[in-house]
């Protein structure tokens, strides 16, 4: 069970802030001349002719890329088990999944295969594996990091984010990749001259932490205990905590999946066998050929999501599903804004459960979707969040999630570094 899909080294510049540092890159981030499969048989032989902006920035910063990491197919999963290249085992929890969809990246850092790693987070795909593998993962504010070269799953929700063994290391990688990019119109001027690494000073004196009750209630008992122990540590260092309510999150998982699947149905439409996948050799008209190529090239979870997304956007269902999901998204945003007007950060367990056993959740997609309950609302709200190790329950890692206001990366990095 491999961490990497392709183990290939790409050397960066001779000097720079990351000179001598090794970085693992999720296999949905384009690397010129190195195949980029997205964990899919459809892209088994696809070699991009260009580098993603973040890869360019890594190379310029002197980092050495050590390989392309395993992932759920097109990012669609919470365990890295939907990869067409097989599952990845959690390096710190035998027989367990590393989380997903950026499971290979988190595992690479946890196993010492790379100093740092890049993942992408559409609904928790950086934070979940960070929590499960006992490392740090950051999901930046939507628009902080360029998505140019990130193969899209749900483009209105996702951001590329860093993994590190410590908050400071992850923050240093964020410094390299953050900032505007003229090739991604959704990036903003923020992050251009950032020094997130310097914010990892552990100073939480006077920090106000809101705890959304809805995000703690449903969680596993051992997870909740570990979470509150970590909050106690923060309070001991001068932070204050209070409960807040996010009523809208009850609808967040549904809304998230409708939006993500709808966007996926369009983003993945280009994989039709004409230029990617098992093209050629089929009889029939274009539609039949396209259908055959997609039937063979996509795995079950991808097909399920593309189908459901197509349905949600269809005439007659668009208003009932897609539009309602957009309304719910607006409500979630508003809820977070209100909660963050009375707290500097919001804290919750990153995942409501500890890492599942390998094979356990594949047969029950709904259970897998519900495991995303604490992470997806953050993507709906476009906000930054970090997952930092909070401790263990029964020997399994537990992550603590801190959510900040838009472009408030420094605040969540400073708070999380108090737990390092």
């Amino acid at each position, binding site marked *: 069970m491999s961490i990497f899909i392709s183990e290939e080294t790409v050397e960066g510049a001779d000097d720079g802030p990351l000179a001598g540092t090794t970085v693992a890159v999720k296999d949905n981030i384009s690397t010129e001349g190195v195949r980029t499969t997205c964990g899919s048989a459809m892209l088994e032989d696809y070699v*991009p002719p260009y580098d993603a902006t973040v890869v360019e920035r890594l190379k310029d910063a002197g980092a050495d890329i050590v390989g392309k990491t395993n992932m759920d197919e097109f990012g669609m999963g919470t365990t890295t088990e939907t990869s067409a290249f097989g599952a990845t085992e959690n390096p710190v929890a035998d027989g367990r999944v590393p989380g997903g969809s950026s499971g290979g990246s988190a595992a690479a850092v946890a196993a010492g295969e790379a100093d740092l790693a890049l993942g992408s987070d559409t609904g928790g795909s950086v934070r979940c594996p960070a929590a499960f593998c006992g490392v740090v993962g950051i999901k930046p504010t939507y628009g902080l990091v360029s998505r140019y070269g990130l193969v899209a799953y749900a483009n209105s929700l996702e951001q590329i984010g860093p993994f590190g063994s410590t908050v400071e290391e992850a923050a240093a990688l964020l410094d390299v990749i953050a900032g505007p990019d003229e090739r991604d119109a*959704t990036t903003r001027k923020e992050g251009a001259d950032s020094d997130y690494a310097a914010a990892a000073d552990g100073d939480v004196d006077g920090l106000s932490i809101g705890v959304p009750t809805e995000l703690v209630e449903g969680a596993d008992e051992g997870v909740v205990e570990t979470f509150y122990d970590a909050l106690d540590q923060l309070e001991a260092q001068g932070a204050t905590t209070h409960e807040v309510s996010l009523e809208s999150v009850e609808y967040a998982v549904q809304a998230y999946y409708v939006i993500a699947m709808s966007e996926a*149905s*369009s983003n993945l*439409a280009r994989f039709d066998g004409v230029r990617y996948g098992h093209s050629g050799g089929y009889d029939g008209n274009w539609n039949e050929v396209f259908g055959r190529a997609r039937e063979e090239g996509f795995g079950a979870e991808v097909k399920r999501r593309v189908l459901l997304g197509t349905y949600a956007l*269809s*005439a007659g269902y668009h208003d009932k599903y897609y539009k309602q999901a957009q309304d719910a998204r607006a409500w979630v945003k508003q809820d977070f804004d209100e909660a963050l007007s009375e707290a500097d950060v919001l804290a919750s367990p990153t995942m409501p459960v500890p890492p599942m056993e390998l094979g356990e959740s594949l047969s029950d997609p709904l259970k897998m979707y519900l495991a995303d309950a604490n992470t997806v609302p953050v993507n709906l709200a476009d906000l930054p969040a970090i997952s930092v190790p909070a401790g263990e329950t029964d020997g399994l890692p537990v992550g603590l999630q801190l959510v900040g206001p838009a472009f408030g990366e420094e605040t969540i990095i400073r708070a999380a570094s108090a737990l390092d």
Partner: protein
Amino acid sequence: MSTQAAQEGDLAAVIGLEVHVQLETATKIFCGCSTEPTEEPNTNVCPVCLGLPGALPVLNEGAVEAAVKVGKAIDADIPEETRFHRKNYYYPDLPKNFQITQYDEPICRDGELEVSVEGERRTVRIRRAHLEEDPGSLQHVGGGIDSATHTRVNYNRAGTPLMEIVTKPDFRRPAEARAFLAKLEEVLEYLGVFDSQRDGSLRVDANLSIIPEDEIDDEGAISEETLADANRTEVKNISSHKGAETALAYEETRQKNLIRRGKGVQQETRHFNETHGSTVSMRSKEEEKDYRYFEEADLPPLQVSDWKERIPIPELPDARRERFEEEYGLDDESASKLTSTKQVADFYEDVAESFDPDLAATWVADNLLGELNYRDMQITDVEGRLDEFTRLVELVADDEITTKNAEEIVLRRMLDEGEQPDDIVEAEGLGKTGEDEVAQAVTEAIDENPEAVADYEDGDDGAINFLVGQVMGKTGGSADPGTVNGLLREELDD
């Protein structure tokens, strides 16, 4: 309606157009690739217009500026902000299998364009106009669309900015639709956002349905119910003004015949066959198409509230025509001809500045355009030589050559041989002083050769050749023998 039909009473056609025009911008709408046509396939391409995984669109504001100019020219409403949607469908020429287009927030809404049909001016209402990306192009090998053994895809065109202009169903006759397309092209070319000479720059879908004529009220309006009741066909694959008229005339006759025979009209998409001048049913499951439009999150909404004020447009053909009538005292016909394209109008104004506006009008509108038209040429074909034509008008204005020679000899040789007017005058000895010399030599030859004159008068036609030779000798061979022959006969036959 289908069989509302067979009823007695006159039938009327209701026509609406959806016009796709390529906007002239240096680069494509969502990437930096050139829009310049190239022979070599798949060379003006990049990750963005090829739709490679991970590539993202970035809006070319030049395309939005062009669209705002069109909006101003058709007097449309331009919203505070404009945004893009995805139109999802599978087709091999579509790199991403969705097209980035505009849906419920188009850049232009509720415009109009005045059209002149057989001397009558009419206002055509424009429902909306929006921006979108052009797909690539397909080349079927070894047969037509149905019988080809394989198909080649060329993405050079993919990402060229397109504007789709949708009219209300305001046309009653195919000729009106044709006139609208001509006028629209004229306006777009005036704006400098369109090149009608470019292959594939205009593509038209035309809708036609038939209603009872008495459903049209005195103002020419038709109720929504009547329109909704009538089954209409959409004809695709029209690429010229003439094609639109032919396709619609065919559809009008076809539908009227069906109704008169008591048969219903099928609501369907039809394909125009330009060679046969007919339309054929596409016989596909087109009718159920659901494009699943939703917002393109990769392109943030663009604020355009002040663009209308910020972006100037040139004087448009109608305003210019009226000004020509007032300022230069031209009649409607000349003024219309002279404002038919921006290049012609600009050229006319250059010439009229230095010479009598009437003379300039005759030379530009009648002579130059007439000769160009005869040769199937455009003003753009001689754009670089307008100084030479100005010189020709100057020669006439200064009375240096006759109008007849200027028209029949100099202008034609300029167009046919590419020669300079002064060179032609010189070579042909057309200068009026030259003519005087020839006339002088003719008089002398007659005076000096009474015998030859007598022979000619006695019916010896050959004697004229001797006299021509004498004249040629006196003029050093510069005179035209034919002209000399004519002049001699004129003198002698008196």
